[in-house]
């Protein structure tokens, strides 16, 4: 099964955007149109080259090879397995749609010449994280992405954006240093940090626990895990909406991806279970879920509410890991898909509203659904999916997660999921109700005109909104299949 094959698609998918970002930067000074076109083209080509790996990956093979060595036993390596592919595919897909969306959104903003190269560069470094063959390479790309996306966070360059950005940066450095510590401990204990070696640490010693803890801090920071989430609700709302969609929808997942790799590659299920570290994950997950959802209710800035909701949703993903069984893991990976789609829909829809009307406060959004039916329609679909209403993808992931919780003999987690769904309902439903049924009564029907954002913005939002429905309606969809395969792959790995 695990064969070493030289397939240069992963390198191409990572390096092409990085290279193109330079060209986009150069052309940006000459022609805005060309710059935008190139950005979209780059995102599309990148998605296609990720998608082109599908036949190889689905046949159960793993792309593994070493590019060059930096230090003895430490080099730039590439490894694409089914889990990497899942993450890379959803990321490049969402990125492609967001790049189309960005064209019109950014035409109203300053600094497009900075935004687009950085936007494309971040795509390359994010894919680099998913396709890294060892923790060292992963770490390089992780830091690269975190630092580069700082520019996206502070794009508006307002006072509060800079303040949020500073918080983000300091937290990123702390997270990066924690990862450094964890990786160097792993290297010291195991002599390698490759993902290809089976379990790296088999004895839960003190140093191993230190490694686990620092991994948890490093990746948990990115994933918005309690109590390291403090940067997230500040940083995500201040970014331009397409960037928020990516920050919340995709970049949070890099933390989750890292944690999955830590649980299944650095350690393994039996080590974690033996050392009872899953309890730590479980407690953190429950707090993260409840805290994210509860605080979201108190927020009245639309994007801020969405950001807090992201924290809650990332809690589900951490919960899926804490349960440590295959069914929960299916739900976990599927929720990564679902949340990527749902949250980018929501942020893009919110962005469209802000772009068109300038309204950010939830109380001002009465009747917005009549003016912008498509945008709010997609928003509604995604919000309902967040709550977990049946034929939507959010339901499917919650359902699978709950089955996993029952399998693990922990029905109280199901209760947590239900409570959180209720909370989600509490903060999403009022927006939807007010949007469609609220509004000033004295207004005449004729006055309310459909006044949508430009089609280049609505189409990506609509596609993503339909995605929420499509991936929930058919339980045998491609995302679910991939999640099943990924989970069985992680559990079925031959452990030497």
């Amino acid at each position: 099964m695990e064969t070493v094959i030289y397939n240069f698609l992963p390198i191409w998918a990572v390096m092409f955007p990085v290279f193109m970002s330079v060209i986009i930067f150069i052309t940006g000074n000459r022609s805005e149109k060309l710059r935008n076109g190139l950005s979209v083209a780059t995102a599309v080509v990148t998605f296609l080259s990720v998608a082109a790996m599908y036949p190889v990956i689905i046949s159960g093979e793993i792309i593994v090879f070493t590019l060059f060595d930096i230090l003895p036993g430490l080099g730039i390596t590439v490894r694409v397995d089914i889990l990497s592919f899942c993450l890379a595919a959803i990321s490049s897909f969402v990125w492609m749609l967001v790049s189309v969306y960005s064209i019109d959104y950014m035409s109203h903003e300053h600094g497009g010449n900075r935004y687009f190269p950085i936007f494309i560069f971040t795509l390359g470094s994010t894919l680099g994280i998913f396709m890294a063959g060892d923790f060292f390479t992963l770490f390089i790309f992780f830091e690269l992405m975190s630092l580069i996306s700082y520019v996206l966070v502070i794009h508006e360059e307002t006072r509060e954006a800079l303040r949020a950005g500073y918080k983000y940066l300091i937290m990123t450095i702390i997270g990066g240093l924690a990862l450094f510590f964890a990786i160097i401990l792993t290297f010291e204990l195991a002599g390698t940090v490759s993902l290809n070696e089976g379990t790296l640490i088999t004895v839960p010693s003190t140093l191993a626990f230190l490694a686990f803890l620092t991994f948890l801090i490093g990746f948990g920071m990115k994933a918005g895990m309690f109590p390291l989430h403090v940067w997230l609700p500040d940083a995500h709302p201040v970014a331009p909406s397409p960037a928020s969609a990516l920050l919340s929808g995709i970049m949070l997942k890099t933390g989750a991806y890292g944690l999955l790799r830590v649980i299944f590659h650095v350690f393994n299920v039996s080590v974690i279970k033996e050392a009872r570290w899953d309890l730590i994950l479980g407690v953190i997950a429950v707090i993260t879920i409840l805290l994210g959802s509860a605080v979201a209710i108190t927020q009245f800035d639309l994007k801020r509410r969405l950001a807090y909701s992201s924290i809650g949703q990332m809690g589900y993903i951490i919960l899926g890991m804490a349960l440590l069984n295959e069914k929960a893991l299916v739900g976990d990976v599927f929720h990564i898909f679902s949340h990527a789609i749902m949250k980018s829909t929501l942020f893009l829809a919110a962005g469209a509203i802000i772009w068109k009307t300038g309204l950010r406060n939830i109380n001002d959004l009465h009747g917005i659904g009549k003016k912008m039916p498509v945008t709010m329609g997609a928003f509604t679909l995604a919000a309902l999916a967040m709550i977990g209403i049946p034929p939507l993808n959010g339901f499917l992931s919650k359902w699978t997660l709950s089955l996993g919780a029952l399998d693990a003999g922990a029905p109280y987690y199901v209760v947590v999921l239900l409570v959180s769904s209720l909370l989600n309902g509490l903060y999403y439903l009022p927006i939807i109700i007010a949007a469609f049924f609220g509004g000033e009564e004295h207004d005449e029907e004729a006055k309310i005109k459909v006044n949508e954002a430009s089609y280049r913005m609505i189409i990506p939002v609509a596609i993503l909104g339909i995605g929420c429905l499509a991936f929930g309606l058919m339980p045998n969809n491609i995302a679910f299949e991939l999640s099943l395969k990924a989970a069985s792959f992680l559990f079925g790995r031959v452990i030497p």
Partner: protein
Amino acid sequence: MSLHLPVLLIVLLLGASYGVPLLDRYRKNLAFPLTITSLAAVFVFSLYLIFLVGRKGPFFYHLGGWPPPWGIELYVDFLAVYMLMVLSTIGLLVMIYGATDLYHELKEEVLSWYYTLYLLLIGSMIGIALTNDLFNMFVFIEISTIASCGIISIKADRRCLEASIKYLILSALGSGCILLAVAMIYMITGNLNFDYIAAELPGALALYPYNILIALSLFIVGFGVKSALFPLHVWLPDAHSSAPSPSSAVLSGLVIKIYAIALVKLLWRVFPPQIYAAVPVLDIILFLSVLAVLVGSIFAMVQDDIKRMLAYSSIAQIGYVFMGIGLFGSRALSGGLLHIFNHAMMKSMLFMAAGLIIYATGIRNIRDLKGIGVRMPWTMGAFTVGAFSMVGIPGTSGFISKWYLALGALDLGRPFYVAVILLSSLLNGIYYFPIVIDAFFGTKVEPRSEHRDVPALMLVPVLILAAGVIFFGFFPGPLLNLIEKALAF
């Protein structure tokens, strides 16, 4: 020719340093070409020496053909050629930068004196790296001390003079300590050659334990003062910040390192290992280095002047080198030695970048640097690379030396020091990143608004070093190879 190459390097530089004032009298416009030619020649010769040593292994050179107990001996080993490479590369690049900057910073009549001092300084540092003789080393140390004092005070304004007097007094103290230690060692062993002393000392340890111990502690204090190890660092911030930018770059980048190397040579090659088991010398160095790393960064945070901030950051960074020395494992020491090169690149680049900003705009205060990145994108780009490397972002050379230091600490079962390294990285981030952020974001500045244009000749060395920082972040292999051989004597 290749036979006499080691001494030729030193003679070339010392000779040129005497030639420059002569030329200044008769052919003024030839003073600078002579300086740069001799530095370039030294650069080429050191590359050749690396090649030679790599091919044939380390070799000795006897000055005037007198064998060791009587004559002076130079020892060209991997450590020496490693330092030669660092010294000649950075020395050349800084002088290329200085070509334009010095015209701006100094009075015309002292210009060629500056070249003299600079050549003396580089020459004496090469001497320290090469020599295998204790007293000869002391002579070179004195030359380099006087020369560095000269290039600090050459601006002759109040701040420079004050700083250089402070430096002179403290480093005279250091020189005194070293001289006393040399005398004691000579008294005990009757030898000045490193190898002869090393052969004598284990036997002498039983007879004169206190004398040897005192000599050792005098060496540590003496070199500690000169390389600004934490409680003895007080002269550094004034000296490095008030000097002209090329001087700061060389002083922070090279001069404080060479004394650390001299100490490494003594500790590793001359003193018997039994002494470290008996007395916690290394633990004391380690303890001081931890303080240096943390306190240097904390002081750097509260500085307003950009060059002063960089100077305090040097105190923290030299702490890493001493941490490598204090841990004394081979991997940790490699990390420390690697950091000598990495920090030489980063810090001289940062000082030159700061000098460029001062040259172009006259701004020294960190708070006034808002928007400077829009005006001077290349300079601040290089500064950003340097800042990343200071924090140890992977892909920069600073990461590699931190990785090695941390791994070395773990090898010896001391994860505490890894935590110290990480904490100090965080502190570095806290004072470097706001500068970078303010430079690029947050203010609307028109590009190229009123300021002097930066000459390409000044920018090129900065960019070469920035490229070097990134290159050695990905390909540190050749350097580590050299260091591993250097530590295998």
